[in-house]
């Protein structure tokens, strides 16, 4: 089905002939589910607890979400660093770059414009002061 000389299809497991010591597929999915459930529970706990410093909760939630996306990619979509999935990883890296540019760029530009929009209300007072 999957020739090891070729690229591997995304979502396919590495063939077991190559890695005889690899854990069974069922175990991989189960580990992924348990880790993802733990991360989800931690996210919900962190958002609702009063024990943590509220300024750090925001960052902590972002880290937990990125960690869980990584768990999904590795355990459910079987993205590996092996040479046979280089194309998949490169496409994914490009996608992540565009996602980062779109989200961070939009928020940065809109926050900057919000600040600049305060100018018209401030301008008349400056002009009045000059008279």
């Amino acid at each position, binding site marked *: *089905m*999957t*020739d090891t*000389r*070729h*690229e*591997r*299809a*995304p*979502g*396919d497991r590495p063939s077991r002939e*190559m*890695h005889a*010591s*690899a854990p069974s*597929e*069922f175990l991989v*999915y*189960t580990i*992924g*589910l348990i880790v*993802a*459930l733990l991360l*989800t529970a931690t*996210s*919900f706990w*962190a*958002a*609702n607890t009063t024990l943590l410093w*509220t300024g750090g*909760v*925001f960052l902590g*939630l*972002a880290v*937990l*979400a990125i960690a*869980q*996306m990584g768990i*999904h*990619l590795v355990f*459910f*979509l079987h993205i590996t660093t092996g040479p046979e999935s280089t*194309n*998949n990883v490169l*496409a*994914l890296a*490009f*996608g992540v770059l*565009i*996602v980062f540019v*779109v*989200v961070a*760029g*939009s*928020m940065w530009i*809109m926050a900057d414009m919000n600040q600049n929009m305060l100018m018209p209300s401030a301008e008349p007072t400056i002009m009045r002061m000059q008279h």
Partner: protein
Amino acid sequence: MNIAVAIDTVPQDTPPSVSETGPAPKRVVVAYGFWIFLLSDIIMFAALFASYAVLVRSTAGGPGGAQLFNQVTVAIETVCLLVSSYTCGLMSLAINSRYRLGTYLGAILTFALGAAFLTLEIREFADMIARGATPERSAFLSAFFTLVGCHGLHVTLGLIWLVVMMVQVAAMGFVPAVERRLLCFSLFWHALDIVWVGLFTVVYLMGVSP
């Protein structure tokens, strides 16, 4: 794997270079193309996430996230989608071993959990609209319904696709074309779960915490 394993498995005669092996199998080409589509879909979601993040404070005097979102519902939805992603993975194992009963069982569980997720989401939307928090109330609510509704639409399409695939398995059996489509479906379903991880974190958890 580690270096020792990698050295052990190097074949004695050098493998043919990529140019000598010819074109990749159709399964690899199809799945890679679908992978590219999924990444572009995720970029579309990134644009919706960006607009939500920009408009989240623009409530126009209307209700904000803290008054609208019910964390218990969201937690149940999250578990439903996560476990359905798991059963979808088990279904793909059954497909790889040509185990028809396991495939149907995995598909039924995946469909039931996906449908439970969708039911909870629609009830949440109906509840919000009944309380006057309609999409036209404020820019925040427009962005919210666009982002979450777009994900819900993807889940709906995924459920329809799953039913179609089970009909194809019943009618044609595990022919290569059906197997490729099932591989694409499981990629789609796992990608939806990845989008939901970002969604419940950004919209529901960050929106509720002070």
